[in-house]
């Protein structure tokens, strides 16, 4: 069970689970707390992981959304994320995966260029969010967005599916690649 598949288990009733993958443990914890504070009608379960693959011996619920958190200040986090991406099934990328880049505010400390992360997100056809997770206000905003995304990916919002959301999230900056 080294590859994560999206719909391999039955969903928990009124439960939505998100998996946050990233090397910045403290910040992920804070983001998780911010998400839990959000007002949401369904139960939220947040899993934090440094990297994939996850240990297969644990009984865990079906994962609805995976967010890969990349810290633009450290190349190690990007490598980590790229490594972990291999353990995710291709069907996950139909709207149930997102990338979150943090630390874009301090240009001087950025060792990874923004374009690298943008290209990565484009390769995997997944939405990319930028956020400064150290500021409380921004963290709360991103937490709100993630909660809404999670609700849609878990199927709690009637009429909108993860794939719908994906096509809606394509802005003019990263249009659907026409090179099919």
């Amino acid at each position, binding site marked *: 069970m080294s590859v994560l598949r999206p*719909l391999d288990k039955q*969903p928990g009733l*009124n439960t939505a689970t998100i998996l946050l993958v990233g090397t910045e443990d403290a910040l992920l914890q804070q983001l998780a707390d911010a998400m839990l*504070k959000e*007002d949401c009608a369904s139960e939220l*379960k947040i899993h934090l992981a*440094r990297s994939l693959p*996850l240990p297969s011996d644990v009984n865990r619920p079906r994962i609805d959304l995976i967010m890969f958190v990349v810290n633009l200040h450290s190349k190690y986090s990007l490598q980590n994320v790229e490594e972990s991406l291999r353990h995710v099934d291709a069907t996950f990328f139909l709207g149930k995966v997102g990338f979150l880049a943090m630390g874009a505010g301090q240009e001087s400390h950025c060792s990874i260029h923004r374009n690298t992360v943008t290209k990565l997100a484009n390769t995997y056809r997944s939405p990319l969010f930028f956020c400064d997770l150290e500021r409380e206000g921004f963290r709360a905003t991103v937490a709100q967005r993630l909660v809404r995304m999670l609700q849609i990916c878990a*199927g709690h919002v009637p009429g909108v*599916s993860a794939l719908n959301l994906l096509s809606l999230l394509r802005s003019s900056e990263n249009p659907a690649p026409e090179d099919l």
Partner: protein
Amino acid sequence: MERRPGEQAAGEPADCGAGGGEGGDDEPPQGAGAQAARPEARLTLLLRLRAQTKQQLLEYKSMVDANEEKTPEQLIQDKHIEAKIEDLEKEVEEVKTAFEMKKLALDSVLMDNMKHVLKLNKLIMKSHQESWDLEEKLLDVRKKRLELKQSSENKLLEIQTEKNKQKDDLANMENSNKIKAMQRNLKMEIQITTVIQNVFQNLILGSKANWAEDPTLKEIVLQLEKNLATI
């Protein structure tokens, strides 16, 4: 070698925002209000769960359908693959155009609403303008009234001063020199006449005639008694 800092399942008590009142078996009933609210809340929960389950069923169904399609590599050769690809692309294009049409239709409705809103805004602005003009007119009328009041006040003041002047003039007249001179002359005449009166009186008395018996003499004497100063 990844670390999972524990499942955040402990978030359940914190996060059930709307789920707080639902299925509150561990909460003591808070009175009749809560009792009435709980069946309703349970109903809402059930409806929501129903919607969720429907959506999730739809997702699973679509996945199953997608997986049922046999992968091209196993069955068909190159030419057919290209034909299939073209067909799929055509389908995608058709769906795209249908979507665009729907968007246009919605946009036209939106445009109608916006035009309506614009019309209403124009009406509002016109009414504002009219009320503004009326207020200006009112202000002008009020100003004029104030001016008239002030001018009437001035006129009355003038009348009063005129009257006062007349009174003063009159008073002054009395103090003028002419009158004084006339009064002096009058006094002089009175004195002279009084002297003449006394002289005639003494003449008649001095003549030792009995003036009481003669009526004409009596009349003359009495007439001379008149004190001219008191007339």
